[in-house]
C-alpha cells in the first residue's frame, strides 16, 4: 500500500471505516445486549393492570426498601467521590514505596466475587469481628443495620471514582497551579477555582457509575444487611423475594421502578456533567 492511498486528500479518512458500519454495529450491539432484555422487563410488567402495578410498587415495605437502596447508594457514591478523589490525587501526584501495589489494590473490589466481599465485611463488622468488637462498645452497630448496607456499597464503589478521575489528573499540568499561585490565589482558591472545575465532569461520571452499581448490588449487601422488613431490606431483595414466590410479574414491576428511577437520576447526572464541561470550556 502506498502512502498516496493512505493519505488521499480528496477523502476524509478515519481510523475506523465507515460511519454506517459503526452506527449499525453500535445499534445491534446495544439492542442485543441492553435494549432487548430491558424491554422484556417492561413487557412482562405490562401484563399487570395499572392499579395492580401501583399496589405492588407502592406497598409500604417496598417503599421502605427504595428509601434504603437509593439513599444508601447516593450516600455511598458521595463518600466515594470525596475519598476517591483524595486517593486518585495521592496516586497521581506523589511517589512513595508500594505505590504500584496500592494502585492495583484499588481495582480489587471489581474482581472480588460480591458474595465473598459481603461475607468478609460481615465477619469484620459483626459484634465479634475485628472492627465490630471495637465499634459495638461505643454504641455503633454496623453489621445487620442500614449502616452495614452503606459500608458494603462504599466498598464496591471505590474503583469507579478513582479510575475516572485518575487520567484527568494525570493530564492536569502542575504549571496550572503554579500560574494560579503566581497570580495570588490561595491553596483553597486554586483547588476550588482551578482544579475542581476541570475534574468535575470526571468526578460526576465516577459518582454516577458508583451510584448505578450500588443501586443494583445484591451479593455483598445481603449478608451484612440483616434484612429486617421496613428497616434493612434493599430493593433487589424485594425482587428476589417475589421471584421465590414465583411472582415474576411482581418482580419485574419493582425492577421497572428501579430502572426508571435510576435512568432519571443518571440522566440528571449526565446533564450536570455536560453543563459543567461546557462551563469550563471542555466541550465534548
Amino acid at each position, binding site marked *: 500500500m502506498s502512502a498516496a492511498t493512505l493519505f488521499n486528500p480528496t477523502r476524509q479518512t478515519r481510523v475506523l471505516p465507515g460511519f454506517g458500519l459503526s452506527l449499525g454495529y453500535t445499534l445491534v450491539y446495544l439492542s442485543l445486549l441492553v435494549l432487548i432484555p430491558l424491554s422484556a422487563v417492561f413487557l412482562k410488567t405490562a401484563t399487570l393492570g395499572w392499579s395492580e402495578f401501583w399496589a405492588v410498587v407502592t406497598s409500604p*415495605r417496598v417503599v421502605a426498601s427504595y428509601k434504603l437502596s437509593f439513599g444508601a447508594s447516593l450516600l455511598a457514591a458521595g463518600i466515594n467521590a470525596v475519598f476517591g478523589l483524595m486517593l486518585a490525587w495521592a496516586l497521581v501526584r506523589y511517589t512513595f514505596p508500594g505505590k504500584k501495589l496500592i494502585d492495583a489494590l484499588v481495582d480489587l473490589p471489581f474482581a472480588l466475587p460480591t458474595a465473598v466481599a459481603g461475607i468478609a465485611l460481615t465477619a469484620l463488622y459483626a459484634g465479634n469481628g475485628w472492627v465490630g468488637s471495637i465499634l459495638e462498645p461505643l454504641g455503633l452497630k454496623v453489621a445487620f443495620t442500614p449502616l452495614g448496607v452503606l459500608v458494603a456499597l462504599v466498598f464496591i464503589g471505590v474503583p469507579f471514582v478513582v479510575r475516572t478521575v485518575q487520567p484527568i489528573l494525570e493530564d492536569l499540568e502542575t504549571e496550572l497551579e503554579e500560574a494560579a499561585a503566581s497570580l495570588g490565589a490561595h491553596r483553597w482558591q486554586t483547588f476550588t477555582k482551578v482544579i475542581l472545575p476541570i475534574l468535575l465532569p470526571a468526578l460526576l461520571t465516577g459518582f454516577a457509575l458508583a451510584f448505578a452499581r450500588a443501586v443494583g448490588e445484591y451479593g455483598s449487601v445481603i*449478608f451484612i444487611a*440483616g*434484612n429486617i*422488613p*421496613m428497616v434493612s431490606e434493599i430493593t433487589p431483595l424485594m425482587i*428476589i423475594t417475589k*421471584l*421465590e414466590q*414465583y411472582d415474576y410479574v411482581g418482580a419485574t414491576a419493582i425492577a421497572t421502578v428501579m430502572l426508571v428511577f435510576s435512568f432519571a437520576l443518571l440522566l440528571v447526572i449526565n446533564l450536570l456533567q455536560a453543563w459543567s464541561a461546557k462551563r469550563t470550556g471542555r466541550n465534548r
Partner: protein
Amino acid sequence: MKPRLRSLIAAAGFAALLIAPAVQAQTTLLNVSYDVTRELYKDINPAFTNWYKAKTGKEVTVNQSHGGSSKQALSVAAGLEADVITMNQSTDIDILVERGGLVAADWRKRFPHDATPYTTYSVFLVRKGNPKGIKDWSDLARPGLSVIVPNPKTSGNGRYTYLAAWGSVIAKGGSEADARDFVTKVFRNVPVLDGGGRGATTTFTQRDLGDVLVTFENEAAQIAKELGDGKFDVVYPSITIDASPPVAVVESVVAKRGTAAEAKAYLDFLYADEGQKIIAKHFFRPRSEAVLKANADRFPPIKAFYVEQLLGNWNDVQKKHFADGGVYDQIVVNR
C-alpha cells in the same frame, strides 16, 4: 502477548474437542437440591454409582446443584435439566406440576412415605449449657431473647420454623388469634433474617449473634455433635413440625435424555439400606426402622405434627401465611 494468547485459545479448543466425546459417552444425572444437603449428596452420589454398577454393570455419574429450595425449583421450571429434584418443601415440587407438568401430578405416590426418603424436624440450637434456659417454643417469645431464624420469605427452613411456632400453639388447643399473637412476639425477637438456612447457621455460630437458632435437626445436630467444637447444645421442644424433604423424578427431562431408569434407581437407592445408612450418618432420620434403631443415640424420640394434618392443605397454608400481604407480612411489618 497476542500470538501467545491465540495459541492458548487454539490449544484450549483442541483440548475441548478431545474431551467432549469422552464426556458424552457416560450417563449422567443431575440432582437439583436445596441448601443444606450438599454434604449428604456428596456421600450418596459415589455410593449410588458403585451400587448401580454392581447391579446393572452401567456407569452413572451424578452431578449436584444446591441453593435455596424455591430458587432451585424456579431454575428447573425455567429449563435447568434436572433428572431428579430433592427439595425441602412439597410446594416446590407442586410448582413443577403446575408449570407445564414437568413432574407427574401423582409424584407423592411414586415413592414410599409420600416420596420422602427421610425426615427431619425444626429444633433449637442453643449455646453450651443452655444459659438462657430455653426449653420450648413458649420461651422464644420471652422479651429480650434473641432468636435467629432464616427469612420465611426466601427459605423453606424459615417457613417451617414459622409454621412450627404457629402449630405449637394450635396443637395445645390455642386459637388462631393466640397463635398469631405468639408468632408476632417470637419475630419481635429476631434481629437478622438471613436468606437461607446456612446463612442463619453462620450468623449464630460464627458471628455469635442470638441466644437460640431454630433450624432443621440435621443441621443442629451436626453442629452440636461434630462441627461446633462442643460449643452448642440441641434442645428438642415438646412438639415440633415434621419437615420431611420430598423427592421426585422430572419426567419431561428424563424422557428427553433417556435417563428414566437411572433416575428412578437413584431415588430408590435413597430408600435402600445403604442409602439410609448414609442418610443417618448425616443426622437425617432414616425411614428404615432397622437403621433408625441402630442410630438410636443420635435420634431421641420426638413428637411432631404434619402441616397438612394440623394446619390444612400446603397450598392454602402457603397462600394464607407467606403470600404478599399474608399473615407473615402483616406480622413483620407491624412488629
